[in-house]
């Protein structure tokens, strides 16, 4: 149905796509895989008219089409649902579904609402037409976006990382919806970083690497290990046990508690909790999305307002009234949402790297330009950050590289205690493993690390102790032999 041949696209200094082919059949779910910067997003943006291609042809239903704007793509029946929801949260579900389509639908409110309800029912989406979109969960919002696309007679539906902010149940619902659509003949392009999900719903996989096509495969012909190898361009025992390879920290002070909290409570609605971390230890908070994992570490860092409890650093009681206090006590925090809480988009990679250390150094003591460049260059090299230069605005980097810059920012501070909240979300497998290895390396050198991830196996690979959360409360702590997938699940679920 859809055929893209020999697509080329260059940006200043980068050839983002070189001669890439891609095809999609009716009623097919086709995964588009590749590392960050492999060209997935660019290919999709070419297809949806956000970028204009430098060369190549696009065929839809056997006819050559030219797509110059997202409007063109929509008219041809190509719809996209992005990772970040691009609807208007302050409008109702129905308004969101019909807005911008002309033909006066939106003026006939009654008809619009009944039409919307019909579609929602048909697709089994748990939302009402008159409900404000913001009052729906993220998953439902995403489904509304899909419903909108589907109702516009789309032939090709592009889902760009739709699952990264959903929990498992929600993902299941989304997959159900995708299968239904597939049955009606819609072709779906699915971009994701989650390998499990690919094998759960997809029929075919196209792999890109460094802007080039690696190949198109039937799902049954490409086992997981091979897929990872194709994406990385090398054979590698990707997700093997990396914990065993690294030594643990064995200083004299390995039993010293770097950080201790007693009855810590913030205004973000978590129950008071106790917590400690020893020198050179890697521990983690686990639990379902919304269980309060992030809120706990935000309370430790003072990112939310602390309203109760005692905090000790190196056994001495301290007050942490805000991020700066935490930083002065050697605590660093890599936040969950990179875009909102992490990067300073328009500033250069250099400024983004030095920011935390600069703030710590003081308002009246700016680093010299040479010093700032030296810091930036050191970490660009150390973490293998792919950027044109240290002066490039961070927003033009790919997600994984942005994350590395934020990581560099905190490592530059040489913290004693590093908190990483979902450092690997939305990041390709290669970088994921890099970050996990880095965490263990740092710990073996004596840094204490708290690691949070939605992916339990990732936590198991890195952490030696897990604090389990349920419903905004700490419900258990696992270490040693208890650190198994099954044990974690049962603790999260509650009961024995």
């Amino acid at each position, binding site marked *: 149905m859809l055929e893209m041949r020999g697509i080329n696209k260059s940006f200043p200094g980068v050839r983002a796509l070189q001669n890439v082919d891609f095809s999609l059949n009716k009623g097919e779910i086709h995964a588009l895989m590749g590392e960050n910067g492999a060209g997935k997003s660019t290919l999709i943006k070419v297809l949806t008219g956000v970028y204009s291609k430098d060369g190549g042809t696009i065929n839809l239903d056997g006819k050559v089409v030219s797509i110059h704007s997202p409007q063109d793509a929509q008219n041809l029946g190509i719809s996209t649902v992005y990772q970040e929801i691009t609807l208007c949260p302050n409008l109702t579900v129905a308004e969101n579904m019909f807005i911008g389509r002309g033909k006066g639908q939106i003026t006939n409110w009654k008809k619009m609402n009944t039409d919307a309800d019909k579609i929602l029912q048909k697709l089994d989406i748990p939302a009402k037409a008159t409900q404000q979109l913001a009052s729906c969960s993220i998953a439902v919002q995403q489904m509304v976006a899909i419903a909108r696309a589907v109702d516009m007679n789309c032939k090709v539906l592009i889902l760009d990382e739709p699952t990264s902010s959903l929990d498992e149940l929600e993902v299941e619902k989304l997959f159900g919806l995708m299968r239904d659509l597939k049955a009606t003949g819609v072709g779906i392009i699915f971009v994701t970083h989650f390998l499990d999900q690919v094998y759960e719903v997809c029929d075919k996989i196209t792999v890109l690497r460094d802007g080039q096509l690696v190949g198109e495969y039937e799902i049954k012909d490409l086992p997981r290990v091979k897929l990872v190898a194709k994406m990385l361009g090398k054979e590698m025992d990707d997700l093997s046990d990396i914990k065993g390879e690294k030594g643990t920290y064995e200083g004299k002070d390995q039993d010293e508690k770097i950080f201790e909290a007693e009855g810590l409570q913030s205004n973000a609605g978590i129950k008071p909790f106790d917590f400690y971390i020893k020198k050179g230890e890697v521990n983690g908070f686990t639990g379902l999305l919304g269980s309060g994992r992030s809120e706990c570490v935000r309370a430790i860092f003072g990112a939310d307002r602390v309203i109760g409890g005692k905090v000790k650093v190196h056994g001495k009681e301290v007050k942490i009234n805000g991020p700066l206090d935490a930083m002065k006590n050697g605590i660093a925090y890599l936040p969950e949402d990179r875009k909102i809480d992490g990067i300073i*988009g328009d500033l250069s990679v250099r400024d983004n790297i030095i920011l935390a250390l600069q703030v710590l150094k003081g308002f*009246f003591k700016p680093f010299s330009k040479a010093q700032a460049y030296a810091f930036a260059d050191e970490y660009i090299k150390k973490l293998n950050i792919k950027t044109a230069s240290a002066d490039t605005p961070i927003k033009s980097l790919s997600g994984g590289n942005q994350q590395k810059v934020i990581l560099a920012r905190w490592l530059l501070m040489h913290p004693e205690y590093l908190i990483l909240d979902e450092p690997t979300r939305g990041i390709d497998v290669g970088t994921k493993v890099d970050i996990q290895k880095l965490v263990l390396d740092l710990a073996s050198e004596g840094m204490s690390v708290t690691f949070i991830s939605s992916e339990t196996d990732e936590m198991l690979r890195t952490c030696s102790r897990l604090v389990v959360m349920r419903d905004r409360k700490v419900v258990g702590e696992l270490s040693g032999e208890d650190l198994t997938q099954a044990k974690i699940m049962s603790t999260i679920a509650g009961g024995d």
Partner: protein
Amino acid sequence: MNRQLLKKITGNQLFIPLLALILLALINLIADPSFFKVTLGTNNAGNPVLSGSPITILDYGSELAILAIGMTLVTAASGGQDISVGATIAIAGSVMLRVLCGTNTRPDTIQAPIIVAFLVACLVGMLCGAFNGALVSIFKIQPMIATLIMFTAGRSIAAWINNNELPIVPDPKFQYFGGFIPGIPIPTTVFIVILCVIVMSLVLKFTNLGLYTQAVGINEKSSRLNGINPTFIKFITFVILGLCVAVAALIKVSRIATINYSVIAKDIEMDAILAVALGGNSLSGGKFNMWASILGAYVIQFLTTTLYKFNVQSDALAAYKAVVVIILVVFSAPKVREYIGQFTKKLSSGKAVKGEAK
């Protein structure tokens, strides 16, 4: 290589205001080369002074240039603008006169040293800035709405400070600031601007004000998580603008040795905001280029002076100015600059392909 240089030049934020200056200069040069004639004469007091259009531009653009400094910082940190600067100039100026003249509106000698009057005016200017800043940073009111209060009340407050009378400063020394110091033929305002620019560049070099304001303007949440206090940074930019206002008020009041509450610095806030925009700075905050804003201020004054030279009636001045401003602002809009950038890139890549073919 040439193309690269071209791209570097057109990509620079100073490009648009500089280009505007050059264009204005060219137009004047063609229309009347004597525009640029600077003559050395003597004024009423018998002191040597330089006169001519370039001097006028440098002289009368001073207040705007000084305000542009503060306005750039406020814009960068808060993503909004202060529309009360004209009214606060009236307040600061009025305070200055009150201190200099006391209760008597026609004193024979000044009642307090000029420096004291100026420092009190600075304090008042900064207090006004603090008031605006507190509304914006602590109470999270949109800057334009928050400063609307001062904008509305300022001139009344200024009149009230002197019981709605118009004191006249008797000391000729007071007029040095907006005029000439005996023996120096260059307007004093030029030195004041240079001083302000030096102070500002030292501040930007030896503190993190630039980095912090930009960080806060781009991403407030993220800045906070890096230990910056966004509330304080926004607050302090308004206070700095208040200080700039006091300096501008000194010049304004000194020019005529008295004050007219309803006319002094009228509409100057719009010109100050325009200067920031002409400098290619985003009015929604974030990255800024201070020097581009200052250049922008002089472009506006250059334009005004040019229009006067072309005998445009003062009533019609605003309309003519608007036309030119539209063109300038459109050209300095990021979207258009991006387009120009792409265009030059296309030119260069076209050439590169041809080169390969050979």
